């Protein structure tokens, strides 16, 4: 359904499929406080997050909860001099605007985890449009599905993870 290329895709969107876009470094070095806040938010007692001796033995030092991956590219809610809200997953918002679809939801996420992320890492993310579907009507309204990959690499160029998001941009049917 969602991986099938659309037959009516505008040329300007077609040329973006497979292209790496919005490569950018996270706004701050990875900090350990987020590891604890994340683990606390789900009452995760895994000792690799809480006990340095265990982390040294098992993971060669502290590592971030793996599912915290997307946090490292989410922009600050506000920053000095920023006049336009900076959005995560910009391709998603580009497609909403391009197709005039005011609403959108994320329907599926698949994340593959590679090198663990550690305190002080500088994470670079880049987005890639994988596919866009033909227009179709679902319970929420009429619109298109799209699939976007976000790749994360550390300052050594090592792949830390890939998130694959499936979104559905739509307009409510009258």
């Amino acid at each position, binding site marked *: 359904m969602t991986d099938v290329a659309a037959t009516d895709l505008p040329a300007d969107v077609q040329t973006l499929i497979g292209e790496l876009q919005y490569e950018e470094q996270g706004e701050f070095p990875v900090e350990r406080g987020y590891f604890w*806040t994340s683990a606390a*938010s789900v009452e995760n007692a895994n000792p*690799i997050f809480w006990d340095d001796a265990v982390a040294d033995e098992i993971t060669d030092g502290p590592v971030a909860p793996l*599912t*915290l991956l997307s946090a490292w590219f989410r922009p600050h809610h506000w920053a000095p001099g920023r006049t336009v809200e900076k959005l995560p997953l910009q391709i998603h918002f580009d497609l909403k605007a391009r197709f005039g679809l005011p609403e959108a939801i994320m329907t599926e996420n698949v*994340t593959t*985890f590679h090198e663990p992320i550690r305190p002080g890492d500088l994470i670079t993310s880049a987005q890639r449009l994988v596919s866009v579907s033909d227009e179709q009507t679902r319970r929420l309204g009429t619109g298109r599905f799209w699939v976007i990959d976000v790749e994360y690499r550390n300052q050594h160029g090592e792949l830390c993870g890939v998130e694959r998001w499936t979104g559905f941009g739509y307009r409510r049917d009258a």
Partner: protein
Amino acid sequence: MTTLEKISVGDVLPDLAYDVTSTTVVLGALASRDWRPMHHDHHFAVERQGVQDIFLNSPNQGAWLERFVTDWTGPKGRLGRLRFKMRKPIFPGDTMVIEGVVRDVSVDASACGWVELDLTIRVGDVICTESEAKVAVPTSPDDNPWQRHGDTWNP
């Protein structure tokens, strides 16, 4: 500590039940740097999104699933892949129950032991989130999946 030879297809993981509150939702959203208002602003969630309340965000649901899996594997369990599909939101006041069952057990070409799990997050009789996880577990007491890098880590 769980090792691969102790795991069989069909094994059922211990359920995790949790009473979700507004604090659960807001803490989870902010912990994952998700500032979108439907995860902290009741009025926005109700009036703009048309749902009954603020609801758990995607990365925090991932964090709950990660915790659920590693509660079972122990600290040497290393998540390789996590897929989840959200069917219905999870709201404050819900008691969510995370359940899991072993779908496959295997060893790959680099001798890494893998377990594939089918997971759900349920509220009452309603499945809110469907998930699949692939987690590496030690093949012996001396094995440690976290020591795998590059060609020896193929999630």
